């Protein structure tokens, strides 16, 4: 959800984040997060970006066709590598699953519902991993992939403030969302966050976006973003 918050902040739209246990049911598509603006409710990445664009806010208008293609390609890289690696670590690494994921995922529900739902989710994620060929990967290989992805992002970012130089785009919001999550979420090992910390320009990038868009932001709003997961503390 951090990606959405960052994206909406970058568009200079004031937002308020609210946590609800029944959030998935409130969402029109069943997926989180969703935004509630006036009397409209819009969920999921693509539709939210389109909605915001239709209202006259877009971050990638300044890019030419080739740059837009590049931006989309890098967003897919992040989805392909980082998101899948996060899912893998959360649901396929036995230690993490037992100690962190099961308790966290099942926390809103009473026993035995919490165990049933989290096992069901785990089974779903493992099926997906098997279909895309990640089931056979060891944790070391997954970390290797994350490293490769971070290296690519670091090389693309270079010394620029944002990926497409002066202005932030959807890609910046997406990368921030994922990297920040990796850097701040408490896991059984620090290996994943260490991989990201190896690239100083990426950590500087995260800090910069956090300072610019998340510190001292306005609480009163005209839109609310709803999420099910627990709050995370900001990077210090």
């Amino acid at each position, binding site marked *: 959800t951090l990606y959405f918050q960052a994206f909406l902040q970058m568009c200079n739209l004031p937002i308020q984040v609210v946590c609800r246990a029944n959030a998935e049911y409130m969402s*029109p*598509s*069943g*997926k989180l997060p969703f935004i509630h603006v006036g009397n409209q409710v819009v969920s*999921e990445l693509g539709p939210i970006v389109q909605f915001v664009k239709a209202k006259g806010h877009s971050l990638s208008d300044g890019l030419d*066709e*080739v740059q*837009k*293609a*590049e931006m*989309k*390609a*890098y967003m*897919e*890289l992040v*989805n*392909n*590598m980082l998101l899948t690696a996060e899912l893998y670590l959360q649901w396929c690494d036995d230690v993490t699953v037992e100690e962190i994921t099961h308790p966290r995922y099942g926390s809103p529900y009473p026993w035995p519902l919490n165990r049933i739902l989290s096992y069901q989710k785990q089974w779903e994620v493992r*099926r*997906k991993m098997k*279909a*895309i060929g990640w089931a056979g990967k060891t944790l070391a290989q997954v970390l290797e992939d994350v490293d*490769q*992805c971070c*290296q*690519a*992002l670091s*090389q*693309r970012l*270079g010394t620029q403030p944002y990926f497409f130089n002066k202005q932030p785009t959807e890609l910046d919001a997406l990368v921030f969302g994922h990297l920040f999550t990796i850097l701040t979420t408490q896991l059984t090992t620090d290996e994943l966050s260490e991989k990201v910390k190896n690239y100083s320009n990426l950590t500087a990038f995260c800090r910069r976006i956090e300072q610019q868009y998340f510190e001292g932001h306005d609480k009163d709003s005209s839109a609310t973003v709803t999420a099910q997961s627990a709050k995370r503390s900001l990077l210090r």
Partner: protein
Amino acid sequence: DVPVLISEDIVISQPAKILNFLRKQKYNADYELSAKQGADTLAYIALLEEKLLPALLHTFWVEAENYCSVTKPWFASRIPFPLSLYLPGKMSREALNRILLTRGGPPLYSLTEVEAQIYRDAKECLNLLSKRLGTSQFFFGDTPTTLDAFVFGFLAPIYKVCFPRVQLQEHLKQLPNLCRFCDDVLTCYFRLTVSGHSPAGQDTADANLQKLTQLVNKESNLIEKMDDNLRKSPQHPPRKLTTLKLAAGGEESSPLNRLSP
């Protein structure tokens, strides 16, 4: 598991590992690329896998007319019986599974909706590739790189295979620079003759056939020898016969080990 690279005694089976192996042997198409271009390569490969691959899998393995009239007979003709009855079906089910698990789910509830979405994504991906290629010969200038190989690998089947249902091919044909790119790679690196058969490919097929014939001949010679031995000494006690069988087994297995890839 395919593809497989066999070099002397080493067998390597996944694309990423094959590329690593080739790089260690000093074969590297990306040597001239800058760090940023290397990063771009990874990003575009991810784009291909996320946006184009589902539609490609669908065209080959899920679209009923295509699968029944082209893909299944084609693959079955290359797979030995009785696997040819089972494997194509399994690959088809796995393709559908992969599409549904990665792209299905709310708000897309039916297979038709998922199909519509994956084809939209694939067409958008083709458009993006076309914009990125522009008027250059290859994606990073005048020499081909890993990205060119990947893109070619995805585009060539769409471009060349004659399916009954061809919406993706028709869209690709509207992007002349991508078609030109495929044709260039085919003429430069695959040297297709007019009839469409690669002469290098034909030679390899002939060499393989020769090897196979030699193997079969050797085995039949061995069997004849065993037969002769048995005929010449019918009154040998069972113990000695067992020894003979073991010796023949040992003799038979070692040439097989030597000849097998």
